[in-house]
């Protein structure tokens, strides 16, 4: 037997700073591990990281690109954080994102608004349609869970695939642009304003594609923060998340909250989809999301379900996604993402338990009685 034992002892109380420190530490450890792997396959980790840093924050132009990538992540991250606070495992932000993109596109492509209608009419309609479509996609598992007790992890996960096929049906079929798996480009009235659109006034904004969606994301983060941290509804969400039986006892309608939280969560993810087609891609296409809704789960965890920290984490991951295009092989940023998630899960254990390393004392000199009764 080894002279030293390592034991995990549950912490009675967790200091506030510890959880933040553990998160930062987890990211640092993940970068070290990823660096080791890069070195192992013959790369130069320092150069790789510098390259990633340079490719995502190196200039005002790439910073703008990073923020464009971060925008859908902020909104889908908020969608997950809100639901996760209630211990409602909405794994379906991806599908809700796709439906949001579809709903917003439908406003443009089905002639709901007359051609040539001004952006001030078109954009709000697209937002409303995107949020509504995302909310509907969220409410389906919400109702199934609230009324029939169906596990929302399964339903939200499966609905992601349904949403993907739904999008594919429209971009391959009715909305296909001459057989390509994409719709025709949206007219300018359906584009959310970008900084580059102001380059006539401010020449320095030329080429900066960061768009209004970022503002929507930041406003949404503020509203979600207000809801979760300062509102009666947020109190109900926290109470249900911690102890559903206590919430019921306190007179809270859990079924209603399940459905409403799912609706708002879906609407946020739907808004992300709208923002992506209207602000960045300007059409609906088959691969509209590189997995924003799944990355959002990691972001929500990294942020410990805090809206403000979701914004920070989303920008970090936006940078990683952007760097994925720059760095070859592009699997490196995906690997870093995965290792960050692993490190986070481990750090969570360290937050909840205290690690004790202690020398073993000589074993008790007891003479164990024969266990078999005489």
């Amino acid at each position: 037997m080894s002279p030293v034992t390592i034991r995990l002892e549950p912490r009675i109380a967790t200091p506030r700073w510890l959880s933040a420190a553990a998160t930062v530490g987890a990211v640092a450890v993940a970068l070290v591990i990823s660096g080791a792997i890069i070195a192992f396959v013959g790369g130069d980790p320092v150069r790789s990281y510098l390259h990633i840093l340079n490719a995502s924050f190196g200039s005002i132009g790439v910073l703008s690109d990073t923020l464009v990538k971060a925008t859908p992540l902020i909104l889908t991250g908020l969608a997950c954080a809100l639901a996760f606070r209630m211990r409602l495992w909405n794994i379906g932000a991806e599908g809700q994102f796709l439906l949001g993109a579809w709903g917003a596109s439908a406003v443009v492509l089905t002639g709901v608004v007359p051609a040539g209608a001004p952006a001030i009419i078109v954009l709000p309609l697209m937002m409303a349609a995107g949020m509504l479509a995302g909310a509907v996609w969220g409410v389906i598992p919400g109702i199934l869970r609230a009324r029939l007790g169906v596990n929302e992890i399964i339903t939200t996960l499966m609905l992601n695939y349904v949403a993907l096929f739904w999008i594919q049906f429209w971009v391959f079929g009715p909305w296909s642009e001459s057989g390509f798996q994409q719709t025709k480009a949206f007219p300018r009235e359906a584009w959310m304003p970008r900084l580059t659109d102001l380059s006539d006034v401010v020449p320095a904004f030329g080429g900066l594609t960061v768009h209004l969606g970022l503002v929507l994301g930041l406003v949404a983060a503020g509203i979600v923060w207000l809801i979760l941290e300062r509102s009666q509804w947020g109190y109900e969400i926290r109470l249900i998340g911690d102890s559903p039986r206590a919430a019921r006892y306190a007179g809270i309608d859990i079924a209603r909250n399940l459905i409403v939280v799912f609706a708002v969560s879906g609407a946020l993810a739907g808004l992300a989809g709208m923002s992506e087609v209207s602000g960045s891609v300007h059409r609906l296409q088959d691969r509209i999301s590189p997995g924003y809704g799944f990355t959002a789960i990691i972001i929500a965890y990294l942020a410990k379900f805090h809206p403000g920290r979701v914004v920070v984490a989303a920008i970090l991951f936006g940078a990683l996604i952007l760097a994925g295009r720059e760095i070859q092989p592009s699997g490196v940023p995906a690997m870093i993402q995965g290792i960050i998630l692993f490190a986070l899960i481990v750090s969570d254990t360290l937050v909840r338990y205290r690690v004790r390393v202690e020398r073993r004392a000589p074993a008790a000199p007891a003479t164990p009685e024969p266990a078999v009764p005489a």
Partner: protein
Amino acid sequence: MSAVAAPALAIEARGIVKSFPGVLANDHVDFDLRRGEVHALLGENGAGKSTLMNILAGLYQPDAGEILIDGAAVTFGSPRDAIAAGLGMVHQHFTLVPSQTVTENVLLGLDRPRFLLHERRSEAEVAALATRFGMRVDPRARIWQLSVGEQQRVEILKMLYRGARILIMDEPTAVLAPQEALELFETLRSMTREGRSVVFISHKLGEVLAIADRVTVMRRGVVTAAGLPTAGATRADLARLMVGRSVLESLDRVAVTPGDVVLAVDGVRATNDRGLPALRDVSLDVRAGEIVGIAAVAGNGQSELAEVITGLRPCSGSVRIAGEAVANESAGTVIARGVAHIPEDRSTVGSAPNLSLTDNLIMKRYRDAPVARGWLMDEATARTIAARLKDAYAISAPSVDTQARLLSGGNLQRLILAREIETKPGLLIAVQPTRGLDVGAIESVHRLLLALRQNGTAILLISEELDEVLALSDRVDVLYEGRVVGTFPAADADVGRIGLLMTGGADEEAAS
């Protein structure tokens, strides 16, 4: 053993110190256990009894102090080390695998047999061990089929099979029926006759005097009486040592003229969680300024009755609160009608374990001003209210940000009482308000209930402690198998008659 001048010590713990954030749970505690004795460890909730025993059993490491087992110093890194030294602990919450048999549970985690189970042989061994200590348990039964008392025997068997010569029992009778408790005492005595030793953690004075040879009393982390022989001790002595003042056992009940009917239950039927009938045509009234007690053995519908009234369980029949029909209304509606509820399950129904004291204290008033401001909440006001209640009800915790799960049983119950009483309820449904509490906490709960009655609140008191029901109530309804089988004024109630009705004796009477 009386002839031995210095009896051999099974355990000797000296100067044990253990602190948790904000609490000094054990402050230089000494404890010794002789071979062949039952040594009771008595103390209020939060006095440090369980902490001391968890240290002895290897679950916690002491900050300071030393432990000697059979005269040799030991350091336990884990319960495995403790059991290897012959010391086993039976916790309040069992650690059994429900789908496995008694024998399988006993063998679980052992190195022997190495690979193949010799089921027959192991079963015979377990059966023999059980018989030797007078425990009735079928080694082939699956755990889920067993009563709580039988499951406890399996836990004891697990320890004995591992060669435990010292058994620590943490409040073993809390989960037992009276008859099962007597059987447990027999088992413990048969163990001490063989020279094994038992530490018996309890806060029930009567059973400590009945089973223990000596008693050590703890209060707020220190020992107030070490190894006192129970032979000459009285309940009053022990109670004083435990709470530090003489316990007021007679309650000051002021005469209150009952007012209007606040709660009227008429012809209520409901089923339990398994869909079986739990309430069969129950009718009862509670008036303002009146305490109506429900006397019943556990599982006769009293839990369901409380849930029906508080909107947590559907029913048929009529429930009226101050004249308004509330049957099958939501819990929120019932709360809005001025009904407070002290639930049976404090830690997951009555409180949210990971939320702060503040969040737990505003559970019933977060929708109303001044905590509510529009759709937002006023954090500062909530914290001020929480701080005031924490002081007024002597909830002992480092701050209002402390998580509720860190409170001891008595403090948690004070938190729930503080919250419910502060809603100034017209009706209070109190379910097992003192279960698991120590003498001092019980007394403070009783005082609060009587003060509430004096202020004109109607109280429905549901308790399995018949003494408590009789001491507090104006009227007692006896519930048996979901029916009210008798109503008595509490003042001159015939305890024998009530006991007979509670246990179904009336049915036999009627039949004969």
